[in-house]
């Protein structure tokens, strides 16, 4: 029972990061109909930048802030300089362009920082606290939970309660009508990319210290897990992305705890396969079909 509680809490804290990353994927999918395969590489780039800033200033938290700002800017740049020019006549085009961006970013990071793992220190202790003799979450896990929670709530509030959120949703659902109503649709798209990339940068900063460290490919497996989470929840549903990300985190934790960590990648793929076979639109698909 203790082990189950531990694995559940561990899965949820890992899942929180996947949830944030899945949310970033969903934001771009909703706004631009692009699955941003480059999101992992973009997040890694901001994390390298963050650790450079941290090394130069001696403050992890300045580096953390730098990652978020760099994430926002990088998202806007990727939209304005690359994705804006992608021809959408074939759904494969944006995928190929995004994969090209992955190669480019990873190659540049390799040239600048090398292809070795660099240490990435966590700012807080990763030793689990014990409550009533039971090992539970570490201070760092709690920090990751809180950071993701704050971002999710802030995004939900922005999208549903503010004028700019209404503009962003309208621009995504009905670009032509939105322009007629005075919405700067292309600006909203860039803002969407910036926000998504900022959330991706946050997820990268949170997850990299818990794994092997900084490496151009550090986010590859996180991307697969988060993408699965996004598909489980339904690519069109932000709440679905959060729940899907948490579910994938739990699944990975149980599989690695009870069946061995070798099987986690397989388990993620099986989950993806099962959802695509049984409910391809995801668990949180809207009841009514889009594109009326």
């Amino acid at each position, binding site marked *: 029972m203790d082990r189950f509680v531990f694995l559940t809490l561990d899965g949820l804290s890992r899942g929180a990061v996947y949830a944030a990353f899945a949310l970033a994927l969903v934001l771009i999918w909703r706004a631009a109909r692009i699955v941003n395969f480059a999101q992992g590489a973009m997040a890694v780039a901001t994390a390298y930048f963050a650790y450079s800033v941290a090394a130069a200033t001696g403050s992890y938290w300045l580096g953390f802030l730098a990652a978020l700002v760099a994430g926002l800017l990088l998202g806007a740049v990727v939209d304005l300089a690359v994705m804006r020019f992608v021809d959408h006549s074939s759904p494969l085009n944006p995928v190929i362009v995004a994969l090209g961006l992955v190669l480019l970013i990873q190659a540049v990071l390799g040239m600048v920082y090398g292809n070795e793992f660099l240490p990435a220190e966590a700012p807080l202790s990763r030793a689990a606290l014990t409550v009533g003799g039971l090992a539970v979450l570490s201070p760092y896990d709690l920090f990751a939970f809180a950071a993701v929670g704050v971002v999710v709530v802030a995004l939900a509030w922005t999208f549903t309660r503010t*004028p700019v959120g*209404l*503009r962003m*949703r*309208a621009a995504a*659902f*009905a670009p*032509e*009508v*939105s*322009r*007629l*109503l*005075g*919405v*700067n*649709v292309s600006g909203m798209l860039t803002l969407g990319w910036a926000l998504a990339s900022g959330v991706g940068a946050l997820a990268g900063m949170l997850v990299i210290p818990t794994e092997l460290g900084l490496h151009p490919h550090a986010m590859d497996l996180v991307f697969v897990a988060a993408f699965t989470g996004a598909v489980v929840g339904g690519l069109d549903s932000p709440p679905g992305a959060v729940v899907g990300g948490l579910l994938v985190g739990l699944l990975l934790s149980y599989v690695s705890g009870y069946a061995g960590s070798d099987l986690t990648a397989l388990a993620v793929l099986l989950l993806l396969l099962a959802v695509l076979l049984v409910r391809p639109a995801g668990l949180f698909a*809207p009841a*009514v079909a*889009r594109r*009326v």
Partner: protein
Amino acid sequence: MSSDDLLLVRGLEAGYGAAPVLHAVDLSVPRGTIAAVVGANGAGKTTLLRTLSGMLRPTAGRIALAGEDLRGIPVEQLVRRGMAHVPEGRGVVGELTVDENLRLGGLWRRDRADAARALDEVYQLFTPLARRRRHLGHQLSGGERQMLALGRALVGRPRLLLLDEPSLGLAPRVVAQIMALLRQLRDSTGLTVLLVEQNVRSALSVADQGVVMALGRVVTATPAAELRDDDDLRHAYLGF
């Protein structure tokens, strides 16, 4: 040409790709009047509206709103100059609630207080919408969607309202209500309307000016009453 024309169009040409649809279209709509553009399917009526609201770039000609040349002004800026376009199929955003759709119509306005007032007025004008504020756009009936699209345009307090086929798919009683509302808005607020309609009778019943289009040209523009009451004229241009 009179300085009282809110909308003035001269020699307008536009089309899709290499195929021109509009040929040398001239049009003038005086302030505070309703002009009905009628004509067969494919006459270029919708293309005319899309070109006026900037969604389609003209290849030649001039569009002036209250004397200002609209060339090169982006679509999203036109609403700030007082032009509201309710597109064919109405353009209600199905994924947003009634209230969100309506608020979207006033988001561009700096005068937040008046935008809120305009929203209240629209709810008073269209009471069925007030009862369904929290419903999603795609849950509404055809008539409610038309009210929503029209109401959303009115939240922006436009000077010129471009309406594409407001009667499409609606019961005659609802069509009559909408036409009566346009007349009422014209008389009470001085709204100028350019209405594109297949439903010639109901459009001419409310319009001041009747503009007949055929094959991308304006074949005649006369007082609507003449087009309505002169059997020869009506027969020649409209075939009934």
